[in-house]
């Protein structure tokens, strides 16, 4: 096929593929051999992660808390019970995470945020182990490695929490459904709805997005509403 387009493209060298092919799949295809202990991970975490994510991965200030909200019972079932509670505040990474590869791969490619791809393979194993320990998935004396990672996967709190039985994957690869789960009504006249306003912004939020007068063109069918508090400059 390359012959169709003479002069275009070339074979990659194996060193090139090695340099870029870093992805790790749920079946751990792509995972480089290596290992790292919880203890080592704690050191990495406190040096390179805690400033943003908090010492226990609890920080709200930069992003979602990474750890929290999972229980021993979840680890047994592989389903995080708190995800069923509409009143549960926030969802941590660990609550959602179905595949351990995802955590390893993401830390390896993207963290620390301002110095991505700076961690050694050992550091990635270690800090992953540390996060798993924070969530009580592995004990404090654990060493995570390419040889035992598949077993640890079997203890992830939300490993059974995912479904692809839906109509929103555009292809037959995942064997979802084709029929959408939700459909609207095509009623055109005297439809059975009661147009009652159930939600709108409270008055105190009126200027929360800035003065909307300045967010609309100064000419046209309408203007932006002046949302400054009465009397403001």
């Amino acid at each position, binding site marked *: 096929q390359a012959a169709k387009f003479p002069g275009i*493209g070339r074979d990659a060298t194996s060193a090139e593929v090695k340099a870029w092919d870093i992805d790790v799949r749920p079946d751990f295809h792509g995972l480089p051999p290596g290992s790292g202990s919880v203890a080592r991970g704690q050191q990495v975490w406190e040096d390179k992660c805690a400033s943003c994510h908090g010492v226990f991965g609890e920080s709200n200030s930069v992003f979602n808390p990474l750890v929290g909200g999972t229980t021993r019972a979840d680890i047994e079932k592989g389903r995080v019970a708190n995800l069923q509670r509409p009143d549960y505040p926030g969802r941590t990474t660990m609550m959602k995470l179905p595949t351990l590869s995802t955590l390893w791969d993401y830390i390896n490619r993207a963290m620390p945020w301002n110095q991505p791809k700076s961690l050694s393979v050992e550091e990635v194993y270690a800090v992953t182990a540390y996060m798993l320990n924070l969530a009580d998935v592995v004990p404090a004396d654990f060493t995570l490695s390419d040889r035992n990672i598949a077993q640890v996967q079997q203890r992830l709190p939300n490993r059974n929490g995912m479904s692809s039985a839906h109509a929103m994957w555009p292809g037959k690869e995942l064997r979802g459904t084709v029929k959408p789960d939700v459909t609207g009504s095509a009623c055109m006249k005297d439809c059975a709805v009661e147009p009652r306003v159930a939600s709108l912004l409270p008055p105190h939020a009126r200027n929360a997005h800035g003065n909307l007068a300045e967010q609309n063109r100064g000419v046209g069918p309408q203007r932006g509403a002046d949302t400054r508090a009465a009397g403001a400059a």
Partner: protein
Amino acid sequence: AAAGAVGSARAQSAGDRNILELPEHSKGLGQAVATDGYGKPSKYEANVQRRQSPGLTQTRQASVSFAPLQSLFGIVTPSGLHFERHHQGWWDIDPSKHRLMVNGLVKSAKVFTMDELMRLPSVSRFHFIECGANTGMEWGNVAVPTCQYTHGMLSCSEFTGVPLITLLEMAGADLNKGRFVLAEGGDGSSMTRTIPMDLVRSGEVLVAYGQNGEMLRPENGYPLRLVVPGVQGVSWIKYLRRVEVGDQPWGAKDEAVHYVDLMPDGTHRQYTSLQECKSVVTTPSGGQVLLDKGFYSITGLAWSGRGKVRQVDVSVDGGRNWRAARLQEPVMSKCLTRFSLDWVWDGKPAIIQSRARDETGYVQPTYRQLRAVRGTRSIYHNNAIQSWLVEESGEVKNVQLG
């Protein structure tokens, strides 16, 4: 207040002084050609900007800016106003140093330079791109005031690039075993997403370098991004450096921890990629004030990740009665479609809505219909019918009906 001032420039007697007194520009010499080798909008358009939603994100490099849909016409989004979603900031990458690698289940892994990619047969297609989290703030209740914030993670461009299938064929990809493709970015986040081979095989997925006639903007992935028509923006990998053919999906961070849809039973739907049929009225819309009673053209945008928009209905009474809107030709697949409907505003409160249907027969749901199945905690893929309340004062407010 704004409403009162308008039109008053016309003097009562002889006429409007903007006509009677010839303006400066009728009586003088203007500026030279190529004053700007690359021109800018009028200074009177300064309000038309993409914006962050205050408090939505804690950093500005893992954040989003919203396109000002309330001020746009037609279907093309000016590239300078294209919405942004970055996970680790944007870059302006030297294209002469950028490379694309193809590996995995292929006969021989390949490397392409930009020079080489741009020599291959290309196509140009108009497509929308919508973030899977667009309108996500509104799942539970009204959270933001204008359609810039409710729907502004949406843009539409003419993209130019090489069908990904061409590159896979050049590498001798195994298209039977290889039922999935990984796309990976070259920036700090090195975003990864699993792409359905069915879509790739159809020729629709593009390795794109062009956007609206010029190169992609840096914020949109210069010099190379994947275009995955109908699929949420997170799959349109920017700064694309690599695609890998594989036999299983990858469970990337944004396929396992984000861009998963929480259902009422506590399970997440994974690999929910497609953007279902949706629409929004942009004129009039939240945060605006109508200047006057009288004639208006209600207009807005409709789109579907499954193909073409077939019909858009508009209601001005909160959904009791609907009229079919005009659709602006050309109606293109997985592309924005502009609709409009004549309306004479009598000065009384009105609730304006639009409801789109696509060529598969899918009808855009109400909030009630959507929440009955998916609850209110999904974050992603909120395609419910949007309601705008026009108050007697002329002010338009974002509302949800009960």
